[in-house]
């Protein structure tokens, strides 16, 4: 079984790994690069826990092959904070208790950040549909949606 050498940029760092062509990008992030923040909840693109950005596009990393990352840029939850400075979404999720078990949280944060970059003032309905592919079994989504709306308001410079 021959492995393929992959060079890619993850959270701004150039990295290299050897991938079996059957391995997903999620497998490679977790098992080759030690970036275990992205989670596998289903392996079929139905839960969104593995959400990452691939060349800026929001994708399920379980539906991307590791070898497809060659020459691309990947952004994961591990790259969301700037050092110790959390992204407003990360802060608002803690403040609003928008997580219980926290397993879906990395994927939801990555997806929500992608939303706010293209729509700085989403409605509740827009947030709910954008995040429909991110399953959360603990919260009933209420506090997640509120946290995203509050983070959007802060990013727009409005007082919460």
């Amino acid at each position, binding site marked *: 079984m021959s492995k393929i050498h992959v060079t890619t940029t993850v959270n701004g760092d150039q990295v290299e790994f050897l991938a079996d062509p059957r391995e997903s990008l999620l497998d490679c992030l977790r098992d080759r690069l030690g970036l275990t923040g992205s989670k596998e909840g289903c392996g079929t693109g139905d839960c969104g826990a593995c959400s990452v950005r691939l060349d800026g596009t929001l994708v399920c990393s379980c539906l991307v092959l590791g070898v497809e990352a060659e020459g691309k840029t990947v952004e994961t939850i591990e790259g969301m904070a700037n050092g110790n400075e959390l992204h407003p979404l990360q802060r608002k999720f803690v403040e609003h*208790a928008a997580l219980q078990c926290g*397993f879906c949280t990395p994927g939801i944060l990555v997806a929500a950040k992608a939303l706010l970059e293209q729509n700085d003032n989403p409605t509740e309905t827009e947030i709910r*549909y954008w995040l429909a592919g991110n*399953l959360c079994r*603990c*919260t009933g989504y*209420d*506090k997640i949606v509120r946290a995203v709306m509050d983070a959007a308001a802060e990013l727009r410079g409005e007082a919460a």
Partner: protein
Amino acid sequence: MAKDEFTEFKLVGTRPDRPDGLDKVTGRARYGADMSMPGMLWAAVVRSPHAHARILRIDTSKAEALEGVKAVVTRADFPEGLTGEEWNLQENTIAGDKALYDGHAVAAVAATSALLAQDAARLIEVDYEVLPHVIDVDDAIKPDAPAIRPGAADATVPEGMPANVVRYIDFGHGDVDAGFAEADLVMERSYKTEATHQGYIEPHACVGQLGADGKGEMWVCTQGQWYIRKMCADVLGLETAQLRVTPSEIGGGFGGKTTIFMEPLSLALSRKAGGRPVKLVMTRSEVLRATGPTASASMDVKIGMTKDGTITAARAEFRMQGGAFPGAPVDMALYCAFAPYKLKNVHHIGYDVLANRPKCAAYRAPGSPMGAFAVESLVDEMSRELGLDPLDVRLTNGVREGDRASYGPTFGSIGLIETLEATKAHPNLLVPLGPNQGRGIAAGYWFNHSGETSVSMAISEDGSAQVSVGTPDIGGSRASIALMVAETLGIPYEDVRVNVVETGSLGVNEPTHGSRATFASGKAAVVATGQAIKEMCRRAAAEWGIDEDAVEWVNGAAQPAGPNAGKFPPLTIREIAGKMGETGGPISGHHEGLPEGVGASFGCHVVDVEVDPETGHTTILRYLVVQDAGRAIHPSYVEGQYQGGAVQGIGWALNEEYIYGEDGRLQNAIFLDYRVPVASDLPMIDTVIVEVPNPGHPFGVRGVGETGITPPLPAIANAIQDATGLRMTHLPMTPPKVLAALKAAGRG
């Protein structure tokens, strides 16, 4: 962090950031599958594709010949002679003579990579003799149903019962026939609910290591590390204390991670592979096929009511299948079914029935949602029939402190009436409804639980405090326990660190189940903290040269009291801790036992729905949860439990179900077709936290995790009746079912 006005507390009732928040929003928190160990192997499991089959031959030679394969195990690698639940657990871990359900593990393999392990698993050949199977509970209880496990019935089952009945329950009080004779209206209905899954997003995962010397360790996502330890030890014939189990962060459990499924396989593989650690991570399909979904239920309920809504008698007969093993929560379902009602005459009958399905596990208030669906549906239907407000009927019959519960004991302090009154006062009840819209209400009940608990706490050199608990933090219990300990010590919340520890650090703890973590670990932590405070007062007394009883603890400091009041300046916790090395050594507290004083909780939900008359599709327009928390230690996480429970109930009511083919195989073992609610399916979930403090807990906690899943099933059915006039008696109320009912009623 504003303090709730009505409490006398500084911290309890506030909403600080959770201690594990930073790790969980940065991806640093380590869950079951996030651990790797040096020299680690990866495992894969071979599972039966048949619902019921005799295993004739397992040929592992091709897999063992594959380069990189380090171990293969079958049942032959496990000890013989187990009995009772220990045998059940072993049999469910890996099949013996027969595969008992689609997905039942038959063999497992460990190799140097995950892909290699999967390749090797595909090379294991199993010959089966397919046997007749049975899936539905009403089929399974028929006298001519395939007998799944002859001899599995316990002593409760009378002679002559069908072969798959393994437990029989019969209890009640009063004279139900006389009660029905007093009624103005007697109605009887039959209901069914289908099996659902807890649907935690994190699949089961562990890394197990076991040497030839019988010593081992495990990293595992679980609600209860001691349960995992004992069950693994039992199944493998190990000495329990030689196994050390460390709980990872847990990606949801809801009861489904209180037991073992594949964990012993990783240990057995490790032992066979020379003690190398073995990582085993389930796929979602394996989670749905081979962990512990709920029971499915078939239920008959009969109620008698007078014209003013007083219930004169009630009778329930529930049949539940919990898979190919005893353990369907038919007892709990019956205990909870009529719990909101004060009943003079009540009779319960239950059957625990085997079927060719996976062994059921607990799921949030196990049994209670099914019973509530049946009873609350019928109470609602009868209220309508009599022209009575369904909330008033519940108030008329509602239990209060001192009343005898439908299942026997006498209620202590409970908050059902307060909960119903708060519901009645909520503005959601005044929102006008449009065409095809309807409103439904229902009540629900859960006992809450205490159980074996062991907690230690210690004061650090700088006056901060650490607390070691044995109950994994699923939804914010570190925060609630830290709040209670900080409140007790009189120090900032941030100065307390709560650690969820491994099995070597404390005596046995039951899992985080039964809504017990904040009640039991919290109560034990407060008692332990009291011991440390007493010791700090003693140290202060020694320094001052006064009697230790003349020292009191106020605002994080020891101060002289009584005749000595004001004689010495207070000694702060920081000052006492700073010199504890010279004043007698470490200051700590420990409490263990079975904390008493559990407080039960009631909830009441109100839901507004709209039903599309052309497609049968139900939309949730508005949703209200009102529930008695006793005391909300961290109100945000109490609300979160209410909201999460309600949404799981919404899924159960509308779309979630285990769907089996004629061949007995699970057809929807994927999140695409096992349809849990998604964000766009839902409105905001409104909550009201009722606080009738539990006198059995230092801060009044009852437990909040489970009651919330109980009312949604009937509340939504009641709302659909309000919208359409149709009484749906079989969950889930999918669009095809609702449309078929509309057509049958000439309304579609």
